[in-house]
């Protein structure tokens, strides 16, 4: 039986097993090595603790923050509020700090399945895409730490899923939420616009007519996002922000993002910076934490990241030839989530890090699974590739022993 012929029931069981296993490894020993902030977690946890007014961890980066307010004003507040909410509900423990990330990381895998299934209508391909996503070490690490990247990735995918489900209002709201977690969440809208632009252009070239209904759909998504960003920011900021209004907050974040190059806080954690083209070579690893049996290494699965070139080449070929939705989506995500960093790196000397590539991983997973399905190769070779990716995942697995 080829993966494309999986029965709905069988594929549902496999998906549930995959999600359960993924959630399991994402929450496994989440409190190890104790009350220690991992890399930039210190900033987000300090922010959440300050908002809640609970005791800070040692080495708090904002010892003089105004009580009750979010001191980390370079980023929107939503992600930090989510961490604070988890602490409020579950207590101030490492599990509470990181459980929202573990949940978001599992949702990412589920959304990859849903998006791939919507675009390819093939359960086997969708399962393979979800499995590739689950096997990415960087995805795993970001699902185990209280940082913002995994929330943004989940919300970008949610926006794209709603969009391909023809729910443009929900897509706009999800995009706005992504922006309210981190400004890079604007990639959600860029992906939607890129996806629809490519579809519309192809339609125009073939029929010499614009598909107005689709353009209306993308305009609705963008419009809802533009309206929801200040509304949601106003709502989230209402109690814990020092900014008088959401526009002032947006202005601060934008100018900070766009214009701050040399300013460094004195206690800045040294993280290897990289240029966006280096990300494709999987270099400049992020050393999240190495303590005891835990070695959190920030690298992508080589069997995913090194497939970027072939996957994009395949997507371009297929999009131009047949206009396949999956291929267009792969290009849209790569265009919306990766190209802005390339353009930014060429224009300004802003620091960038390997984990900025995280939202592109679902596109690679969907592209790789679709490419694999379209190639007439023996099943053993395809299965072998998946096993190799799994072996790489095991190699980079963060625990090197029993804590």
């Amino acid at each position, binding site marked *: 039986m080829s993966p494309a012929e999986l029965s709905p029931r069988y594929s549902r069981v496999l998906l549930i097993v995959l999600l359960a296993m993924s959630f399991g490894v994402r929450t496994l020993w989440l409190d190890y090595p104790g009350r220690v902030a991992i890399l930039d977690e210190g900033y987000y946890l300090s922010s959440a603790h300050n908002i809640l007014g609970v005791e800070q961890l040692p080495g708090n980066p904002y010892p003089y*923050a*105004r009580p009750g307010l979010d001191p980390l004003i370079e980023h929107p507040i939503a992600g930090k509020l989510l961490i604070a909410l988890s602490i409020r509900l579950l207590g101030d423990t490492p599990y509470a700090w990181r459980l929202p990330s573990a949940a978001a990381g599992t949702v990412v895998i589920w959304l990859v399945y849903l998006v791939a299934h919507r675009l390819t209508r093939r359960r086997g391909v969708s399962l393979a895409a979800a499995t590739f996503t689950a096997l990415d070490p960087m995805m795993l690490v970001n699902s185990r730490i209280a940082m913002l990247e995994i929330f943004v990735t989940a919300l970008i995918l949610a926006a794209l899923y709603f969009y391909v489900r023809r729910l443009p209002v929900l897509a706009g709201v999800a995009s706005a939420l992504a922006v309210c977690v981190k400004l890079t969440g604007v990639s959600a809208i860029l992906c939607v616009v890129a996806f629809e632009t490519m579809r519309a252009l192809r339609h125009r070239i073939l029929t010499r007519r614009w598909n107005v209904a689709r353009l209306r759909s993308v305009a609705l998504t963008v419009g809802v996002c533009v309206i929801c960003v200040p509304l949601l920011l106003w709502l989230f900021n209402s109690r814990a922000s*020092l900014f008088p209004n959401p526009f*002032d907050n947006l202005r601060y974040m*934008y100018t900070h993002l766009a*214009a701050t190059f040399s300013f460094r806080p004195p206690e800045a954690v040294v993280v290897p910076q990289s240029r966006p083209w280096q990300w494709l070579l999987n270099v400049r690893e992020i050393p999240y934490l190495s303590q005891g049996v835990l070695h959190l290494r920030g690298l992508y699965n080589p069997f995913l990241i090194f497939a970027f070139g072939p996957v994009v080449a395949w997507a371009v070929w297929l999009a131009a030839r047949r206009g396949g939705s999956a291929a267009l989506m792969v290009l849209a995500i790569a265009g919306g989530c990766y190209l802005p960093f390339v353009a930014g790196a060429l*224009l*300004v000397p802003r620091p960038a890090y390997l984990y900025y590539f995280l939202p592109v991983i679902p596109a690679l997973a969907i592209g790789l699974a679709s490419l694999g399905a379209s190639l007439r190769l023996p099943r053993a070779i395809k299965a072998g590739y998946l096993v190799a990716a799994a072996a790489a995942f095991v190699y980079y697995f963060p625990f090197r022993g029993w804590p």
Partner: protein
Amino acid sequence: MAVSRLLIAGLVAVLAGACVNGPRWEATMARARQERERGDYTAAERSLLDALGQADRLHPLHPYELETNTELARLYFKTGDFAKAKDALTRLVGKLETLYREDHPSIGAMHGDLGRACDALGQLDEAHAHYVKALAVAVQVPAQNAIDYLYLDMAVNAQRRGRTEEAGALFAKAESAARQLHPGGAIFDEIRTKRGR
């Protein structure tokens, strides 16, 4: 159609402007530092004011705005232009107090500097008010905020306000703090000289 195009062009210009202002500010600040090191304070002031204009186009709380005001205040202290130093420090303290609690060591240190600027301008009561705020922070971080020098400045301020007893007590505190923080330092000569006056 023309209006919407104009609006989009305006938005793009504003967004791109923020990207351009960063590198321009960095270049201007580097020039200002070179000019100050050369001793060309007039040119340094001009460059710093240019940098402040570039930082103003960002956000009032942007780190570049804070850094430029700090550099300006330093320069004005060096050139003895205390009125301008006071303006720069007042701007800076206002912005920092939006971001941090009043017990932030930098805010305390800036109140101390504001006190010195007011003293130099003959605004003795205002100087005293700033010194009191500076002292509230300095008692928590005495070494970082050089509490011995702060006591000394407060003592001189009290002298000038005609509060002899208060001044005497503050000189004593300055001496006692200096013994711990700067034993054998030049501050003891300063205390003797100023007390004698």
